[in-house]
């Protein structure tokens, strides 16, 4: 049994520290998660399209990005953004704001994964679909927009939600570089007072608060996308009358 988990004194110490530590940490994590997710989605869609495009150069660029990011640890990447990236700008004293650092960190990392999710999603749609679209005179973008992507979404929704949830949880890596996020403040308060059970339990609950609605939303979208497509009701009668 974890000692002192139900100790009232420790919990009241936690509630006293709550506004100073957990609220700013929670907001920072939430902000980084939302903006990071947007960045990851944009990068993912762009590079996902690149890797399923016809031009070889785009494919190669996308491959390099994905392989490099996928096969190196996030902790190392964040460390690199933190200490090496500023040197590109100036040799002394330039600092990337922690929020931007977090957004770049998780955004670029999960962008690579999402790009893979999207690539596999596009490739999973049978080739006959795009050939049929081509035979009907659809352009590449029209094919993508009307035929391929709607089918892709169904396939990619579950792995995409997975990535979104992982992204939220991976923001905790920022604590390593004093990122002022939820994990940072949890460590800070927990280590300060020694009430680790309270500190980490509360932190877990707060991550859950962010992740759980996201998971439910993803599930809802997944179920909705699985509904069989219903043909649009065209106003055929009006046409007939006109004839």
């Amino acid at each position: 049994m974890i000692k002192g988990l139900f100790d009232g004194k420790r919990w009241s110490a936690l509630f006293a520290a709550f506004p100073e530590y957990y609220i700013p940490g929670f907001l920072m994590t939430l902000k980084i998660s939302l903006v990071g997710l947007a960045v990851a989605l944009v990068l993912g869609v762009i590079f996902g399209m690149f890797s399923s495009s016809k031009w070889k150069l785009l494919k190669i660029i996308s491959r390099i990005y994905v392989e490099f990011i996928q096969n190196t640890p996030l902790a190392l990447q964040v460390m690199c953004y933190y200490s090496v990236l500023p040197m590109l700008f100036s040799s002394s004293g330039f600092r990337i704001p922690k929020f931007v650092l977090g957004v770049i960190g998780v955004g670029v990392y999960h962008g690579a994964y999402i790009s893979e999710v999207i690539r596999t999603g596009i490739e999973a749609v049978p080739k006959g679909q795009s050939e049929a679209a081509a035979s009907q005179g659809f352009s590449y973008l029209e094919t993508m927009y009307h035929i391929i992507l709607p089918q892709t979404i169904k396939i990619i929704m579950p792995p995409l939600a997975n990535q979104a949830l992982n992204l939220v949880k991976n923001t905790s890596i920022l604590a390593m570089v004093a990122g002022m996020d939820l994990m940072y403040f949890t460590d800070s308060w927990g280590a300060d007072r020694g009430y680790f059970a309270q500190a980490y339990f509360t932190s877990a609950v707060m991550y859950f608060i962010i992740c759980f609605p996201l998971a439910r939303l993803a599930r809802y979208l997944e179920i909705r996308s699985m509904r069989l497509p219903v043909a649009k009701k065209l106003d055929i009668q009006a046409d007939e009358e006109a004839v």
Partner: protein
Amino acid sequence: MMKKMLSLALAFAMAATLTACGSKAPEATKAPADTKAAGSSAEATTGAGAAGTAAKDVQKIIDRGVLKVGCKSDIPKFSLQNTATGQYEGFEDDLAYEIAGSIFGCSAAEAKEKKLVEFQGVTAKTRGPLLENGEIDLVIATFTITPERKETYNFSTPYYTDAVGLLVNKDSGIKSIEDLDGKVIGVAQSSTTKDGFKKYVDEKGLKVNPQFQEFDGYPALAQALATKQIDCFSVDRAILAGYVNDGNLILEDRFAEQDYGVAAAKENTGLAEAVEKKVTSMLSDGSMKKLQDQWGLQ
């Protein structure tokens, strides 16, 4: 053709994993027994603690035949793990041997020779939980005594008094504490540096208002200073001394005199008593001073 080759490769991979499982089996069967033993001993120590009898927790350690001590592994002179031999060497480690000697009824040299102390490297963050869950019996790891911590752990009389110092890059142009206004000071998690700094500045009537950032471990702090992500690295001077190099220097200012104590878990009162007796006797007969001189500590 391609498919056939793939299935062949898969078959090989599966065969490989199967044989791997086979060869590992003896180890796997052995492992649960070990963990069981470890688990029961951990339970036993907590059981003794709950009973609250004074000598029982000490008896437990004597029965086990080894005193488990949490020490830092990265502080020169205090407690540094020798990378070649894996041994812990320093003032705090010798103190651990002294305490072990008094518990097992032998001299410190004998305790060292018989390996009666089992060291475990700890950080500012891990030492508390390790002590609380009974993984280690004592923490002798530049652990500053504070009123809040006294509520959670059993501290001995201070065995060393240190002050906090400020390490800055030479090319940063920071000459004294006054230059730190608006700068970023890196401190270690679970350290008392922040409060000490504010108190010192208030006492001197200076208007210095830096920003504090906490890091997990001293190497991370040293790295952040080297890459100029923080302007100043501020922890106990004993620890700072290990990170001085050509590019940085320690400022004159010293503040927040703080006392290091040996910590035991709150319920291990018998052990705390034994430690307290040893530390006070070492302080009164001058052997503590001798030990500090031996390691070159002022």
